[in-house]
């Protein structure tokens, strides 16, 4: 149905190969610090994408992302830590026997992190998604806090407020960007499918969507659960990147950073979330400068801890007040646009995916 379909598929494959080459050379040529930041960016891209699915594409204002991330991070950490580390770390209360001798490889543990987070997604979504707008926001925020409080108090499983240390480390760009690119491809395919349109229909006009036969609650729950799944995956990746986690990491503040990515990139644009995820992560690292003491023009300027977050809060306000569309609005990167620019002709008829 589309005369340029072949070219577009070829371009996509070439881009993926290029990405693989970049990752290959990046892994061997970049410094450990640079790789770490890029890996963090991959995690934030996944978080941005998954929150955008819920907020931007389905129109549900959820503030519970940090909670699902917390679940994924703890699941993956507990599944991969060696029995010896567990014995060492759980000194307040020993870990429950079932979990004691489990020692999974990183990838299955990551998937499991996503699955357990998705289960929590269903449990939270089932009651919460009957609410809308600000009620939904405050209820999901409440659920995220409840999750965090439970994690803090179930010491024989999570080691409570002390957190977990010695989580196996994973440093390769392949792992982080591989999962990230896979997430992009999956979510893009989902958004462009009949289900993606059903989500957008609910966002555009819930009552009309229902009148078209779309089961609103079922689709909201599906979108919310998929969002929770990827938040869990990202949480698991976070455990392997920083190798020590504790419940205070997953405060509401974290959801705020993800929300910034979604709003900056454009609510309802996957491309926007990818760009904003990378930009915000790198900017966040770069802005550490303002929090360190500096030597400027012969003067010693003391570092200002917390300044980064002030800048981000201001940025969020400026975007929402003056530039509500964000970088991309609801537009997406697509080959048609590139090919049009390059002057490659196409036939008139267009297809659906």
């Amino acid at each position, binding site marked *: 149905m589309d005369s340029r379909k072949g070219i577009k598929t070829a371009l996509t494959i070439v881009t993926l190969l290029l990405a693989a080459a970049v990752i290959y050379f990046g892994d061997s040529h970049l410094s450990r610090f640079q790789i770490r930041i890029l890996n963090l960016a991959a995690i934030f891209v996944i978080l941005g994408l998954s929150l955008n699915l819920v907020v931007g594409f389905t129109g549900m204002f959820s503030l519970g992302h940090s909670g699902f991330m917390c679940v994924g991070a703890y699941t993956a950490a507990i599944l991969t830590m060696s029995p010896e580390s567990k014995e060492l770390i759980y000194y307040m209360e020993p870990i429950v026997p079932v979990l004691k001798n489990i020692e999974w490889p990183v990838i299955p543990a990551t998937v499991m992190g996503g699955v357990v987070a998705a289960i929590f997604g269903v449990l939270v979504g089932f009651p919460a998604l009957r609410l809308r707008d600000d009620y939904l926001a405050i209820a999901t925020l409440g659920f995220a806090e409840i999750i965090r409080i439970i994690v803090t108090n179930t010491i024989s499983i999570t080691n409570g407020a002390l957190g977990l240390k010695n989580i196996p480390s994973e440093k390769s760009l392949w792992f982080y960007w591989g999962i990230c690119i896979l997430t992009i491809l999956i979510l893009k395919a989902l958004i462009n499918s009949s289900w993606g349109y059903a989500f*957008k229909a609910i966002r*555009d006009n819930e009552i009309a969507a229902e*009148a078209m036969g779309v089961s609103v609650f079922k689709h909201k729950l599906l979108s919310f659960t998929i969002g929770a799944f990827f938040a869990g995956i990202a949480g698991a990746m976070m455990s392997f990147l920083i190798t020590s986690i504790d419940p205070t990491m997953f405060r509401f503040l974290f959801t705020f950073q993800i929300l910034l990515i979604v709003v900056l990139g454009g609510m309802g644009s996957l491309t926007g979330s990818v760009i904003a995820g990378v930009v915000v992560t790198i900017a966040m690292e770069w802005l550490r400068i303002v929090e360190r003491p500096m030597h400027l023009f012969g003067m010693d300027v003391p570092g200002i801890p917390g300044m980064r977050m002030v800048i981000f809060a201001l940025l969020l306000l400026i975007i929402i007040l003056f530039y509500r569309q964000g970088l991309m609005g609801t537009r997406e990167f697509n080959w048609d646009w590139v090919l049009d620019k390059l002057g490659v002709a196409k036939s008139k008829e267009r297809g659906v995916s």
Partner: protein
Amino acid sequence: MDAEKVLSTDDITIRFGGLTAVSKLSLDIYPGEIIGLIGPNGAGKTTCFNIITGVYAPTEGKVYFKGKDITGMRSDLITKEGIARTFQNIRLFQSMTVLENVLISKHVRLKANPLEAILRMPRYTRARRRHYEECMELLRQVGLEDVAHEMATSLPYGKQRRLEIARALATQPTLLLLDEPAAGMNPQESLELMKFIEQIRHRFELTILMIEHHMEVVMGICERITVLDYGVTIAQGTPTEIQNNQQVIEAYLGAVETNA
């Protein structure tokens, strides 16, 4: 229940707090009819649509569709049973094209699961292609084919109204509820709309229940009319009977006076 009736409402009543919006409404609609529901503003007409389509559950009374009790059923399930509607204030999906708006109605007919969709498995792609063709065919029949890939909200007002009807038709209903389809139209446009409604009624073998303020439209195509005033049914009958009904005239004149 009489299975021959397409729709039958049995003394439906709905109260919001202290306000009775619809009181003991009984409608009986037979296959192929066009029925008008009229009354002054705030008479409870749209509320009545909302009860039939499951947006609200009635406080009392029952709604039967082809003999089946659908009282308080979920909207999307009622759509699946074969009732479709349009909205008084146009409710198109603003982020989508004309074609995509219509395609939404086919989503519920997909047998494939989301995983098959993500992986673009044959069962999904085949169904999707078929739906695409069905929707293009429908757009051709209602004369929106040439704007299929335009954004729905970029269409002129009259075409947006037509798209709302097309979108409802795409759910393959037996009963179509039209909520003020001629609102905001000039006499010429209303006339075209009347022809259009006549056309689709025959082509798609529809039964139609419509709310309308344009009397020339209502009197022109409706076979029977029900008049509501403050939720109460004040008259039922043929257009001629309604035009000569003293109570109806009073309700409307009264409404005119209070409006002025």
